[in-house]
């Protein structure tokens, strides 16, 4: 399913900011096809899809999390993670129960409204479930007609977040698949599984608004810090993301 043409896109789109850009990648370094569930590739893909900075700061953490991630994913119920790569493919065997798009059939309006409600801290009588432990942020995708809300606390890594976003907007944005041409070890898999606007073919760049109101590229900071500071998420069209990186670089320098 991989196409060679996408392999070359990286250079054109990277804008020279490889080090700071997060590419949304599928677990298992896979394309959209089946058979990429292998736990072996999970670790590698995770490390590759997060930028170098992250590796330096949290190398131990990421490796641990990636290693336990497959097992954890199996156990966790009512989560938005998926085990397998493709969610919109044909029926998976029951053992690999992936969350599918649009099931159960509840309108997104209802889903997001209930998410909004849970977000409000429960002051009286505990009539709300533990909303204060959640970190709900709005997610919008340029061009999509609906906003979604997700609870960042449900994910433990950028990778999990990525997968969830793909689930949510999978019917809207395609996933470019170019890993086959990449080779197996190391290599640059930044291109794999990027969210791609189906109409224009340009990539989506995940950005977020932090507590200071600045728009940053997702992936610059350790996951926990990101969860604390992220107010909302926006998947921007690649062309609009120019100019974000330098600011975020500076900010990180100032922070550390």
């Amino acid at each position, binding site marked *: *399913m991989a*196409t060679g043409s996408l392999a070359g896109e990286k250079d054109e789109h990277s804008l020279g900011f490889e080090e700071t850009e997060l590419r949304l990648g599928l677990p298992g370094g896979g394309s*959209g096809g089946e058979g990429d569930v292998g736990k072996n590739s999970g670790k590698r893909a995770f490390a590759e899809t997060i930028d170098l900075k992250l590796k330096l700061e949290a190398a131990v953490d990421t490796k641990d999390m990636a290693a336990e991630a497959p097992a954890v994913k199996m156990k966790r*119920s*009512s*989560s*938005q993670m998926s085990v397998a790569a493709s969610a*919109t*493919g*044909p*029926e998976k065997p*029951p053992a690999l*129960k992936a*969350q*599918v*798009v*649009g*099931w*159960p*059939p*509840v*309108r*997104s*309006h*209802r*889903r997001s*409204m*209930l998410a*909004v*409600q849970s977000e*409000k801290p429960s*002051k*009286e*009588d505990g*009539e*709300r*479930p533990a909303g204060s432990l959640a970190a709900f942020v709005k997610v*919008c995708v340029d*061009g*999509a*007609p*609906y*906003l979604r809300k997700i609870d960042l606390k449900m994910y433990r890594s950028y990778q999990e977040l990525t997968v969830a976003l793909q689930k*949510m907007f*999978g*019917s*809207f944005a*395609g*996933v*470019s*698949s170019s890993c086959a041409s990449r080779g197996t070890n190391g290599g640059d898999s930044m291109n794999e599984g990027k969210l*791609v606007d*189906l*109409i224009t*073919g340009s990539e989506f760049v995940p950005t977020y608004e932090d507590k200071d109101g600045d728009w940053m590229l997702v992936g610059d900071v350790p996951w926990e810090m990101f969860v604390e500071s992220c107010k909302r998420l926006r998947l921007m069209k690649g062309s609009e993301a120019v100019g974000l990186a330098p600011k975020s670089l500076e900010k990180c320098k100032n922070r550390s």
Partner: protein
Amino acid sequence: MREERSDMSEDDDGGGEEKDSWAPGLGVAGKSRGAPDPLPPPLCDQVLENVIENVLQFLSSRRDRNAASLVCRSWYRAEAQTRRELFIGNCYAVSPRRAIDRFRCVRSLVLKGKPRFADFGLVPVGWGAHFSPWASAMAAGYPWLEKICLKRMSVTDDDLSLLALSFPFFKGLTLICCDGFSTAGLAVFAEKCRHLRLLDLIEDYFEEEEYEVVDWISKFPQTTTSLETLGFDCLLSAVNFEALEALIARSPALRQLRVNHHVTVDQLRRLMVLAPQLTHLGTGSFRSPEEGEGMEHEAHLVSAFAASRSLVSLSGFREVAPQFLPAIYPVCSNITFLNFSFAEITAEELKPVIRHCHNLQNFWVLDTVRDEGLQAVAATCKDLRELRVFPLDATEDSEGFVSDVGLTAISDGCRKLQSILYFCQRMTNKAVLTMSKNCQELVVFRLCIMGRHLPDHHTGEPMDEGFGAIVMNCKKLTRLAVSGLLTDKAFGYIGKYGKSIRTLSVAFAGNSDMGLRYVLEGCPKLQKLEIRDSPFGDAALLSGIHHYYNMRFLWMSSCKLSHRGCEDVARRLPHLVVEVIRDRPEADDEAVEKLYMYRSLVGRRNDAPPFVKIL
């Protein structure tokens, strides 16, 4: 327009939109295939036609009208002249031009666009259903247009502006599950539409950034308005409350008001005091932003409800603070529609309320009330016609708070039930069977067992027998949605007994092509069929060739279809538009991920995006 918002999401009254029969070979006089009749009738026929027109104008049902139009040319013309309400169930089945050419005097239009599975994210953005071509055509063709109701259409702000400017007599706009517009469009619409009586926004999608939000409420005419219905409970942004208050104050005809979750309970009270004549109220958040406001607020709220003697419908309760619930007691015995489907309340919190609701006919609720809550409903609401139980946690692994117990209780207590939508995780064939026997009036049965392929949780068997009992025993059933572990046997039952079924929704069910074949060969009234993630392939698809022209649409996603099979259908049925929708850009895939096909008088559409391939 219509009283209950639930109407539009139910199955429709009839299959024929403005098309007549679909047997192209029949030379039925008056059947519309090309331009309207160019020759004027002879004089004596003209007199007769006038007479017929005078009679036909009393016909309101579109099925009756479709039948009348088939009698002869004269009746066809007379009917076309007198049809005031035009219903188009699929905007791509006919062109605006054709509709306007045939029906010259339309005052009210209902137009539906995207397939229903678009609500669940299965249809990529940009697929179509654009309102713009219709808007411009009607601006030219129907200057007396008064009402428009759109469902699952893409409506732009420009469209709203065009509407407001083109129709001097415009009275009512209803938008259901629409997208593409913003508060900016609403502002223009509110400002320019001077005689507006109805604006109802129902589960529409808004995408604006906060800084883009426009104060549209302030744009309504500053004089006394004709507003009868104003609903914006799906609006994500807050409205200018002072302006809203002032608007209500100068809208003496207002009967229906549905505010969004930004309106606090105290603000609600102020609005209610201004409009004690309301019949339908959407209550917004139904909580107070400050803690410990307590008794004072509650007392005032009670008196506001007590003064609203005409209330028959309550909704909202988006963030309900339970201490305010008793305020609605004064109206409970009058209300026929209660929508608690955003209220996370327990059985204990529900019981004191529902106990008063003797006349309740439509009840929407969250499963947080559990089986116990449903038992309380069954005990009191003997007149219940429609029940919808939504899941708080809409994921397939969720705990699920209601079960076969609740369903059984409802079926025991609410014998007049006509329509049910029930999300759960645990269900038994026995409970479904019980309902099929107790509730003979069932027209709509939609059971969603959220976990995929879940069997009867007592016996471990498939849910075949339960659904079989429903189609066997409920003779009035026209709409069915199935779930849980289902084999082809279930579909055998549906094909054998479901002779009145018009809408069928299938997910993760069946073993083989036979399943779909049973349905296509057995259900003569089938009009809308939506299937996902079920192992039906080309052979099954082909088995419906004899029937597809009688249907509004067929949707199949994540099944076992191939291009070859779909092309086969397309070739054999030239009036069918066969769309293959791709999620991913791979063009060479032989497997068809998503198929959407529908009959059309105008052939393939010209606005299909690149990811749609029309065969």
